[in-house]
């Protein structure tokens, strides 16, 4: 049905007898919104946040387009056809804004459950859009259906809008309280932008609709002002884009965007034939210009920073190439050390042993001492190389651990039995003691644990000139650990030595007094191995000359 009192529009939208503000409030804002949304979306199509922003601007522009259509057209059928979508699009705008804020603060999609909640809120609006619950008629004198709008349906989508106005600040405040300063600034910007946008849109459209409906307002032209809220929203989004890279939009792209906005606003002057429209266009241009100056400054700063970063990146790349070369050299060296140094040393030690034992004929007595020295030096050198290789493996993360359950008490006892003869040769007593409540099982690499304990007992023998070495295995059920204590009556350690004894290449000052060769890597390797298997080694001493106590603690298997 045709509204007989109004003139028919030309080109669907252009007609006389309507508020001058109408075109100004609808066309630029819708174009701004859709431009920004599309722009952000095209810069990072896979970003959910960008998709949601695009959807929000799309829904807003659609609402604006429908509203412009309803203002300017006189065919009741068409106006009624689009009228239900004002409520639906308003509610969609509200729900999408909540969704947008959720994704912004959590950097991930919302849960399926929340999607169901959103669907449940929106579904009734779609289902009842075409029914009398929403619209039952049309007034062709005033060319609107205000008097025929269903109260329940209308209050329902108003409820959804109000819900979003409450929900969004709650979300943002909760996140704000647990965020760092950078994110807090972004939350303030986004929160202010979204809330002002929704609030102006909601108030203007609701107030216009409600008061026009009850006849307080002559028409609903107040809603025209509500659309300017989107400019505030776009302004804040612009700051987020350039200052915080929130939407991953490029720097040059931001400048282009700003220029296009200014051109678009300026183009309004060409058809603003009234003083009101000219003043409003000027205000918008000033507003956009002010925001633009901030953005341009930010962009310049970004460019400078980017150039510095690029320069640093080039340098870093060169250094990285050099480091890779050095790393390769190091790996080659480790390989050489492993295969070409260790093997001959083993042969030297082996042949020296064979010579000493007379396998190549009886040697003169005066040859025995040199042969012994050759064998000891070769073995020390082989052990040193093994230590270096272990350090290399530990630091490169290539040390392999094959964890199995075994009885630590039994393994420690076997090691004591093996090393007892060595202790006896130095005139030391090697004692083995246990105080076990549980069976004594641990989950660790047997070979590595043997190596660690062997190293600790061997050290105790080396650095003790007289007295005894006691190996004491006991468990602590409460702490669920098994301790292997190696107590000697040797040279002891000062407090400063205790602090640095597990560091690489560190040897106690006292070690020099007993003329014992060492690389300073044994305890470092032992500590790293113990830690890798969930344990640790601690060193204790009451001072120089008062003996030492090393404790290997490993978690027990219950």
């Amino acid at each position: 049905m045709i509204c007989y009192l109004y003139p028919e529009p030309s080109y669907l939208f252009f007609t006389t007898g309507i508020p001058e503000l109408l075109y100004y409030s609808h066309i630029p804002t819708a174009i701004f919104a859709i431009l920004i949304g599309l722009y952000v979306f095209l810069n990072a199509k896979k970003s959910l946040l960008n998709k949601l922003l695009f959807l929000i601007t799309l829904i807003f522009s659609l609402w604006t387009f429908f509203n412009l259509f309803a203002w300017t057209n006189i065919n009741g059928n068409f106006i009624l056809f689009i009228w239900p979508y004002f409520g639906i699009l308003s509610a969609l705008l509200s729900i999408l804004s909540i969704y947008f804020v959720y994704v912004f603060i959590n950097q991930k999609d919302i849960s399926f459950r929340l999607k169901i909640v959103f669907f449940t809120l929106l579904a009734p609006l779609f289902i009842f859009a075409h029914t009398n619950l929403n619209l039952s008629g049309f007034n062709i004198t005033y060319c609107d259906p205000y008097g025929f709008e269903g109260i329940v349906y209308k209050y329902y989508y108003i409820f959804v809008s109000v819900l979003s106005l409450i929900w969004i600040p709650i979300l943002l405040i909760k996140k704000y309280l647990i965020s760092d300063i950078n994110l807090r600034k972004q939350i303030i910007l986004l929160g202010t932008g979204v809330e002002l946008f929704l609030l102006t849109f909601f108030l203007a459209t609701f107030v216009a609709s409600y008061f026009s409906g009850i006849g307080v307002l002559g028409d609903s032209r107040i809603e025209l002002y509500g659309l300017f809220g989107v400019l505030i929203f776009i302004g804040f989004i612009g700051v987020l884009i350039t200052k915080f890279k929130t939407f991953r939009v490029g720097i040059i792209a931001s400048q282009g965007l700003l220029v296009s906005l200014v051109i678009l606003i300026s183009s309004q002057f060409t058809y603003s034939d009234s003083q009101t429209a000219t003043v409003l266009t000027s205000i918008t241009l000033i507003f956009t210009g002010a925001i633009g100056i901030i953005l341009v400054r930010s962009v310049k700063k970004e460019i400078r920073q980017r150039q510095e970063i690029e320069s640093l990146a080039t340098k870093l790349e060169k250094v990285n190439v050099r480091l890779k070369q050095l790393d390769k050299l190091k790996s080659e060296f480790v390989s050489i050390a492993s295969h070409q140094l260790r093997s001959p040393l083993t042969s030297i030690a082996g042949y020296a042993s064979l010579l000493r034992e007379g396998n190549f004929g009886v040697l003169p007595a005066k040859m025995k001492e040199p042969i012994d020295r050759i064998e000891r030096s070769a073995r020390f050198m082989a052990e040193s190389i093994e230590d270096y290789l272990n350090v290399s493996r530990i630091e490169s993360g290539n040390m392999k651990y094959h964890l199995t359950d075994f009885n630590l008490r039994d393994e420690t006892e076997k090691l004591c039995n093996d090393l007892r003869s060595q202790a006896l040769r130095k005139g030391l007593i090697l004692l083995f003691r246990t105080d076990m409540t549980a069976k004594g099982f641990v989950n660790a690499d047997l070979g590595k644990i043997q190596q660690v304990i062997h190293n600790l007992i061997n050290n105790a023998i080396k650095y003790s000139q007289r007295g005894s070495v006691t190996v004491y295995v006991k468990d602590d059920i409460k702490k669920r650990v098994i301790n292997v204590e190696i107590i000697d009556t040797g040279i002891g350690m000062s407090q400063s030595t205790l602090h640095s004894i597990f560091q690489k290449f560190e040897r106690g000052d006292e070690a020099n007094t007993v003329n014992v060769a060492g690389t300073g890597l044994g305890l470092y390797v032992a500590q790293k191995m113990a830690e890798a298997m969930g344990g640790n080694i601690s060193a204790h001493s009451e001072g120089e000359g008062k003996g030492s106590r090393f404790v290997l603690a490993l978690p027990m298997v219950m």
Partner: protein
Amino acid sequence: MNFKKYFLLYTLIPLAILSIASSYYRFIVTEDYLVEYEEECNPEVNSCFIGCKDDDCSAEYYYCLVTKHASQLMTQCGPDITDCESAQVCLPGEKGDCSVTFCDIETDGDACEVIEMGPTYENVEPSEVINNTTSVEIGAELII
């Protein structure tokens, strides 16, 4: 996984399509809605609403409110009711919801204008006069 990820799209898009199709069918194809409009009213005969011809209300006019079913009105007058006499009355045999509403002094007060006391009806049963508005139901004819 994809269903959960795109749940809102998978559910709301079909709903939107159905909703658009239903609205289109109702409001454009079948024109199944009521139409309300102002019709000329003679204050010497009826209690009329008073309207202003401009914002300053320098000139007044009198009107009553007519409500008809859109498809019925379309059949009687076409899309434009200007100069359509059938639009001013509820005709005999007209399908539901047709009514002509006059101003009620008790409820609308100063918005009404009555020059002669009481409206004159012909062929209208007293029982068809509704409390606060004067309506003519289907089958009755109002002479203005």
